[in-house]
């Protein structure tokens, strides 16, 4: 079922969704676009390439409160923080970012102990995927095509959107999306020409090139395993790295977190917050032992985790080629060129 509406009706669509629950969509801020909860239906703006921070925060917020406690009182008085989630609509997510949710699902809810926060937020949310504009060239940092992700892949979205000039086409992908669409009165049925345009656009997405390098994930995983001990390679790669962690914070598939207690005047909250393997105290043990005191060891952990360990553990690469880490690195470290260098590293001359 393909529906359509016009771009000038976006505020109307936004208002209809806001009536049903919480709408989270990209809005323009000083530094660029970011996903935020919409308070004014006119804020929704689909003229963006991609957001600075990935939309993972919709399911894995930077801070998630677990428990409120009072110091000096019995543990029995501590109160878990209830998650009272309204139906949530995550609007305008690019296909590579939608893919990141599927990768994170494997970790948070698909294997081992289920993370209740991730699962409940996922269940409460309907995803509106949004195809990249293929009339423009891809951003220089992006390489999702290299990882097999199309610029207009609808998989993983509940409703998938393609824009054609002033028309916004919306296709129902899942039963969840269908239920929502049935409750929206104004999108009208698309014409046969529009259905053809939509289908062609999705097919064309697979040929839309980002930076091109042929990637064999299994081979890359092995390559990284074989160069783990090549500290010359890692030292050179991490030469400029500030260990600031921005790559991990903007990343849609980085999931490391800290659990910490914050107390102020005896009132406290235990919460989880994003953490990063780039920080020196990430692996500092109470004994004083720390296996990753050097910058190169931490950058190695980050890169190997994404392109090697994760493949061996979960069978998928922990990267969607969104390019954020490269785009926002203050010293221009380009993660994909590290992958390329690693493939070449066997010929790397020892310094």
């Amino acid at each position, binding site marked *: 079922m393909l529906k359509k509406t016009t771009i000038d009706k976006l505020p109307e669509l936004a208002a209809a969704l806001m009536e049903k629950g919480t709408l989270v969509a990209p809005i323009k801020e000083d530094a660029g676009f970011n996903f935020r909860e919409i308070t004014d239906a006119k804020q929704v703006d689909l003229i963006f390439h991609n957001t600075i921070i990935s939309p993972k925060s919709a399911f894995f917020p930077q801070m998630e409160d677990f428990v409120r406690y009072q110091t000096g009182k019995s543990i029995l008085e501590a109160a878990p923080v*209830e998650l009272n989630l309204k139906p949530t609509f995550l609007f305008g997510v690019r296909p590579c970012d939608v893919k990141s949710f599927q990768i994170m699902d494997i970790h948070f809810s698909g294997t081992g102990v289920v993370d209740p*926060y991730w699962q409940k937020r996922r269940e409460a949310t309907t995803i509106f995927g949004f195809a990249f504009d293929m009339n423009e060239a891809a951003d220089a940092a992006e390489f999702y095509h290299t990882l097999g992700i199309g610029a207009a892949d609808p998989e993983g979205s509940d409703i998938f959107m393609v824009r054609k000039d002033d028309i916004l086409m919306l296709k129902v992908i899942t039963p969840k999306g269908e239920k929502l669409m049935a409750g929206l009165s104004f999108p009208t049925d698309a014409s046969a020409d529009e259905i053809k345009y939509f289908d062609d656009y999705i097919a064309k997405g697979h040929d839309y090139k980002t930076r091109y390098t042929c990637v064999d994930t299994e081979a890359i995983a092995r390559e990284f395993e074989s160069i783990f001990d090549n500290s010359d390679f890692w030292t050179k790669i991490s030469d400029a790295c500030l260990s600031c962690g921005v790559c991990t914070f903007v990343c849609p598939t980085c999931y490391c977190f800290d659990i910490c207690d914050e107390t102020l005047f005896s009132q*406290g909250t235990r919460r989880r917050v994003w953490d990063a393997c780039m920080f020196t105290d990430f692996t500092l043990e109470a004994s004083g032992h720390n*296996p990753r005191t050097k910058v190169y060891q931490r950058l190695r952990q980050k890169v190997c985790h994404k392109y090697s360990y994760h493949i061996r*553990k979960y069978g998928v690469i922990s990267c969607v080629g969104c390019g954020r880490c490269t785009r926002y690195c203050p010293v221009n470290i380009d993660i994909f060129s590290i992958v390329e260098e690693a493939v070449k590293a066997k010929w790397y001359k020892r310094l």
Partner: protein
Amino acid sequence: MTTNNPYIPMPVAISKVIDEVDTHDIKTFRFTFLNEEDGKNFKYLPGQFAELSIYGKGESPIGIASSPTEPGYVEFTVQRAGTIVPGLVTAALHDMDEGGTIGLRGPLGHSWPIEFLEKKNIVVVGGGFAFTTLRSLINFMLHDDNRSRFGEITVIYGARTPGLLLYKDELAQWEKRDDIKTVITVDKGDDTWMGRQGFVPAVCREVAPSPKNTVAVICGPPIMIKFTLPVFFELGFSKENILTSLEMRMKCGIGKCGRCNVGFKYVCSDGPVFSLAQLEELPRDF
């Protein structure tokens, strides 16, 4: 978000505190569950650990020192951390008395592979403070219900000084039994020490357990492990038959927070128990 939320600790009360060593920085805490239901559901095996949780301080992952054959409580032997890194949780716990309440999340991680150990001879090698989950294993194997499931049991346990030996009463009881061979050693004795002196690796060479149908379970400080492993290789033990428990900084304990990641394993949920053969598959990043 309370039911089945793996991040919310269960309330427990301290029912007993044992000051283990003459430096008074290692104590065994016995906890009883404040909710009876939690106690019933807390089913564990030797080698597993739990997060000790004190609101306002944080959480610490600690190996379970009691054996599941001792119902009604769970024990942890905890060192007060703080010489290099301030240990907020362990310091707060050490300052608590019987009756104090804290939180507990667990049991976490994989146990010593009991089924794999069955019908085999077991050599338990421990050094210093790393003896806690080994004590759990020994008490489990020695229990009347379990003793016949295992072959000969040999324990080689060492500490720097006599005053630093843990579980002294139990060591004395084991020495009296004829179904367990107990070899206790200290690096350096004192005026009252009548027992053996010598480092654990040297004592292992002297005791020379046969590798035949035998599994070695080894826990200790890195330096002890480093010199003990070659002894067991010389004796003919295979890497599959040498087990140890890995340490890594942890937070969640359930394989989600990424902190204890080494190679394609999470030490908390894939370990902490590994065979030497499994460890050799991992990058040297711990």
